[in-house]
């Protein structure tokens, strides 16, 4: 067992698993300190995720946007960029989807792809700005994307209210032909808000994997992320690749927005503050090792925390414990150097 843990080949999946384990342990410790029985808390969490068909459906509803923001952040990471702006790209994407959903009147088989495409394009455009500024002016993308998040929040809130028919809190409903929601899925899960978005998220992960692992373009992007100078020397267009990879990253985040606006709600909402999907995406990407398929799993895990934590409130555990566990998992995932060192030392003392 110890040899298994010490073997560096296994670290790729042992480290994320340990991060999750430590995250839940830390959550348990917080609960114990604050006088709550963690076993009851976690039992309520599990019940809140798989307790009945409806909760099961809501789990997938919560996971779909997280998978997309995870893919968005991961795409940036793989190409050497830190896209902390998935939140803003998500906001503009969700708005673009709703605009096309309200004002374009075409049959569903054209409408739905059009809606998704516009969300992706809007997200990509929002991602273009930090990409362009980094390529042209060497401005660091982290700060620009944070600023873009808040700009998006306020400007889109204004734009939603400016749409015809909007109230102070929401737009009008989108046309039924633009919606991802499905009576069938809703019925089999006891009237949850389950929609087709999850399948699209899985499709997104496959596209992610294909671009990164199976195309020359993806190889170039990774190469630029790994060593821009060497890539430039090898004849790759570094600046163009930075902009493109930021745009693709933004497109994934824009689709996350579509999951929410034309999947979960079917209208655009004026929000007082960012809902944290972008930051959660960092957690999803980190835990998913920035690889397409692992991101589906880590997205499902964080989706479970998000969906199930409100059920924990019934067991008199404040639902914010979900955020706390998530934060600890990110913290432990970020410490992977420390965890690897800890694993390498395991068992050495006895010898």
């Amino acid at each position, binding site marked *: 067992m110890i040899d298994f843990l010490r073997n560096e080949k296994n670290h790729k999946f042992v480290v994320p698993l340990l991060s999750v384990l430590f995250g839940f342990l830390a959550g348990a410790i917080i609960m114990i300190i604050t006088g709550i029985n963690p076993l009851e808390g976690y039992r309520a969490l599990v019940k809140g995720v798989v307790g009945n068909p409806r909760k099961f459906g809501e789990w997938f509803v919560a996971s779909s946007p997280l998978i997309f923001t995870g893919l968005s952040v991961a795409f940036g990471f793989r190409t050497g960029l830190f896209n902390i702006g998935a939140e803003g790209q998500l906001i503009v994407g969700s708005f673009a989807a709703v605009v096309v959903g309200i004002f374009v009147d075409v049959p569903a088989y054209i409408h739905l792809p059009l809606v998704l495409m516009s969300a992706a394009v809007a997200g990509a455009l929002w991602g273009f700005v930090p990409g362009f500024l980094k390529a042209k002016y060497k401005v660091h993308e*982290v700060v620009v994307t944070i600023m873009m998040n808040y700009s998006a929040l306020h400007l889109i809130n204004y734009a939603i209210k400016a749409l015809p028919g909007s109230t102070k809190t929401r737009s009008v409903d989108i046309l039924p032909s633009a919606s991802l929601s499905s009576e069938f899925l809703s019925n089999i899960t006891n009237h949850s808000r389950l929609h087709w978005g999850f399948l699209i998220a899985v499709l997104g992960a496959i596209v992610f994997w294909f671009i990164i692992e199976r195309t020359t373009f993806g190889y170039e992007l990774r190469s630029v992320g790994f060593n821009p100078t060497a890539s430039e020397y090898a004849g790759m267009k570094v600046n163009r690749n930075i902009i493109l990879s930021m745009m693709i990253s933004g497109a994934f985040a824009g689709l996350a927005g579509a999951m929410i606006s034309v999947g979960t709600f079917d209208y655009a909402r004026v929000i007082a*503050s960012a809902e944290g999907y972008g930051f959660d995406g960092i957690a999803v990407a980190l835990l998913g090792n920035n690889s397409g398929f692992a991101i589906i799993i880590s997205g499902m895990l964080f989706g479970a925390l998000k969906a199930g934590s409100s059920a924990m409130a019934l067991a008199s555990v404040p639902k*914010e414990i979900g955020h706390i566990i*998530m934060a600890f998992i990110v913290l432990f995932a*970020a410490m992977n150097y420390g965890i690897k060192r800890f694993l390498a030392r395991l068992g050495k003392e006895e010898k």
Partner: protein
Amino acid sequence: MDFIQFIKIIMPLTLASAAPIISTSLGGLFSERSGVVNIGLEGLMMIGAFTSATVTVLVEPSLGVLSPWVGIIAGIIAGGLFSLIHAYVSINLRADQVISGTAINLLAGGLTIYLCQIIFNQQRTRTFLYGIKKQEIPFLSDIPLIGDAFFSKVHITSFIVILLAIIVWYVVFKTPFGLRLRAVGEHPGAADSMGINVYRMRYIGVILSGLFAGLGGSIMVLSQDIQYTHMSIHGTGFIALAALIFGKWHPIGVLGAGLFFGFSQALGVIAFQVPFLSKLPYEFFWAFPYVLTIIALVVFSGKSAGPRAIGKPYDKGER
């Protein structure tokens, strides 16, 4: 509204909104000058704000008017303690500093509301009676015009923060400690070879950022709010980060940038009373500081103003 009236209304508001930005931004300055990026300022402010609001509520019955000051001190200490997580993870464990800072923000957002539930059984703290009240500064408020605009109906904390900016300038640029701090942020290897303990200096930088952000959060909640909620800080930590860049990592620059962002926020609050501004939606004023920061970044680009070793973990073996 004529111009003089406009100044009289907007100046006290500017000073009030600028104080938390400046304080937190000065904290970020210590951390980033030592070479550690601190995206977690927002979270550290939340911790400070939550602690000070909670302590104020709890000690109010016995201490009365003194309680917000006890609250502020508690908030400062809590911010400092919480920043130790960021320091340990990013200095000792050499984690990615941006990710570590993100984790701080997530953790603070969850933990503060969680503790509100535990302590007060609601999503927010109880309301406090004794916040930091607006007051007249004796003598100075008697000066015509200036007295009305700057020294009556202001929070004393705004002036404490402005004074702090000057002290920070002195410490960072005129003392041996400041020189060491900057050396560690510019070229840790060289600093180390001169006998400066890089890890210790960076720890001090990060802890100072926690103390200052704790102060900023405390001032913000106690002067602008009646209780701590998940909306109390609403991105001010990120504005502080912007002010740090806008002010080119210089305390006096930070002071100016903080006042400017404070002014733009104040403008958003009173815009509906100003004739030609009332046509613009208030969301534009809220987005203004962020858009402006992006423009500033582009304008400053090329002249790399930031510390050179920023964001890079220091590994002794690589020297």
